[in-house]
């Protein structure tokens, strides 16, 4: 509000500003009136003041930027990896559900197999009764040790005979292409390609002959019931199985199975989002996450210690400032300096992280993942920059101007 009322005055002031020589003394006077200055020019002056201080000790600036940038890089690399896991988690879930809103898993549960990047059933699905008009698809599922390596095999019971639908990665592994034939478990099947994964979809009987009866159900409601938000409880009532909207819940080992209702949202997150969060959580809570968090703390220590060093060296300067009545304003000087340090470190760290991920873990590097990770770390920046500035200011404000001016160092 102050700014708005000041702006005409400011225009008058800048209109009457004298020759360049007078500008310096004017700057010093106006510096004292920081709190009543319009935002634009004050910001520019603060920035110039901060840049001057940085130029005075360029090594320290470079070192603290390098330290924090390394720490940010570590965190962004870990986040990029975890985003990569989250997306492979949601991709595998999308393949499993194939548009169905309900997923019935065996009591032994399912697990994610990283070698085929797909969910694999650990037991046979329970017997299932569905409400009238609903469709239940019994899916046989397991790992097929194919000639081209491990592949995830899906068998849709009741699907048309004689066809195999391969993900492009599976087709590459088997060295085949659309229109040719492959032999699985003694059955000759015509290949068609769909999707990208290490996935092979075949008729149920073929799959059963290769991987056994392990699998699950996917359930689609009747067109009358589509769009209802209590699909899980409807199916639970018809089948006698427990249901949950929570992907973190595992089926009870002593029970018959569990229904996952994937239609609802909880805290604004869809089932798929919460499911992939389980994957990224595995990364951030692993050794990777712990090590990178410690790195971030160390980077923050470096920032604070270099600010404290500059407080120590500029005692006299701050003594003069506080003796002419500048006290809280000192905070702004440090805020701007700290913002510059953290911003520079963030940019350098994000770029370095992109390069590091592409070189070290190319299998998990995606541009989207890197951007998402960089965005997540950007959220910490303001807090780090503000706390980094508050510590030295707190140290300064504890001392009387006289002791700052007469201090030995």
């Amino acid at each position, binding site marked *: 509000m102050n700014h708005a009322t000041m702006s005409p005055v400011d225009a008058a002031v800048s209109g009457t500003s004298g020759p360049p020589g007078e500008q310096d003394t004017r700057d010093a006077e106006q510096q004292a009136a920081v709190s009543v200055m319009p935002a634009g020019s004050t910001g520019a002056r603060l920035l110039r003041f901060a840049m001057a201080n940085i130029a005075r000790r360029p090594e320290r600036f470079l070192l603290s930027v*390098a330290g924090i940038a390394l720490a940010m890089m570590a965190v962004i690399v870990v986040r990029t990896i975890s985003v990569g896991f989250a997306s492979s988690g949601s991709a595998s879930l999308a393949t499993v559900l194939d548009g169905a809103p309900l997923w019935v898993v065996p009591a032994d549960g399912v697990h994610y197999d*990283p070698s085929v990047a797909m969910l694999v059933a650990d037991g046979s699905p329970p017997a299932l009764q569905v409400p009238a008009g609903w469709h239940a698809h019994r899916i046989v599922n397991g790992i097929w040790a194919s000639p081209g390596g491990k592949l995830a095999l899906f068998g849709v019971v009741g699907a048309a005979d004689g066809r195999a639908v391969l993900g492009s990665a599976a087709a590459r592994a088997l060295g085949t292409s659309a229109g040719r034939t492959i032999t699985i478990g003694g059955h000759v099947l015509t290949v068609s390609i769909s999707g990208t994964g290490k996935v092979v979809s075949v008729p149920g009987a073929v799959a059963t002959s290769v991987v056994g009866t392990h699998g699950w159900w996917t359930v689609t409601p009747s067109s009358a019931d589509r769009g209802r938000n209590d699909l899980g409880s409807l199916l639970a009532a018809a089948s006698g199985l427990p249901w949950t909207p929570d992907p973190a819940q595992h089926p009870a080992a002593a029970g018959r199975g569990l229904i996952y209702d994937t239609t609802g949202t909880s805290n604004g997150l869809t089932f798929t989002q919460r499911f992939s969060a389980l994957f990224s959580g595995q990364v951030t809570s692993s050794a990777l996450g712990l090590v990178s968090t410690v*790195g971030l703390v160390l980077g923050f220590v470096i920032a604070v210690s270099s600010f404290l060093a500059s407080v120590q060296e500029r005692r006299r300067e701050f003594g003069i400032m506080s003796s002419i009545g500048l006290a809280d304003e000192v905070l702004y000087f440090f805020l701007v300096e700290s913002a510059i340090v953290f911003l520079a470190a963030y940019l350098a760290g994000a770029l370095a992280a992109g390069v590091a991920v592409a070189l070290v873990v190319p299998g998990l590097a995606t541009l989207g993942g890197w951007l998402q990770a960089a965005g997540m770390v950007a959220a910490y920046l303001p807090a780090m920059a503000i706390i980094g500035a508050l510590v030295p200011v707190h140290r300064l404000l504890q001392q009387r101007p006289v002791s700052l001016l007469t201090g030995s160092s």
Partner: protein
Amino acid sequence: MIAAGLSYGMLSTRRRARELILPIITTATGAFLLVQVLSLAGSVRRQAASLGNGTEIYRAIVLISVVVLLVGVVEVAVCTTRTVTQRTREIGVLGATGVRRAPVVAALLVEPLVAALVGALVGSAVAVAGGFVLSATGVSSTSPDVAGTVVGVALAVGVSVVASLLTSAMPTWRAASRPPIRSLSSGG
């Protein structure tokens, strides 16, 4: 002359030991993590494998530990910039009495060298001791991997010493290159 510089540096390092506590702690933290990751390579590898892409993830863990160690070592160099500023006048006196640049730089580099070395060794010692305590009390199922531990300690010491000398070289060189009259007349 260099030897004289080094022993002078040793004396001033002992005098200023308290200044070195923070850089030693940060370096030790980085070294601790690196040695811990390498000495528990077995279980870390297993954890990485359970996430898939085991080799890649393990490589990423080791690299990130090295990066965190570097972050710790940067604090050593920040401390050196502080030292150089506080001792501007002393450096001026040395220059004015005819001491050449190389011994002065050598004297100033003793401090970061000692800080990095002590930090790396303390961190490694804590990590090794911690590993043995964990396996002795049965908290960790795998016993520490001796070869991994040796590699970890060597890597921690090597990386922190080299990195601290490289990062401290620029500020000390600049300080020792200033004309003595400017160092003597500066406010600090």
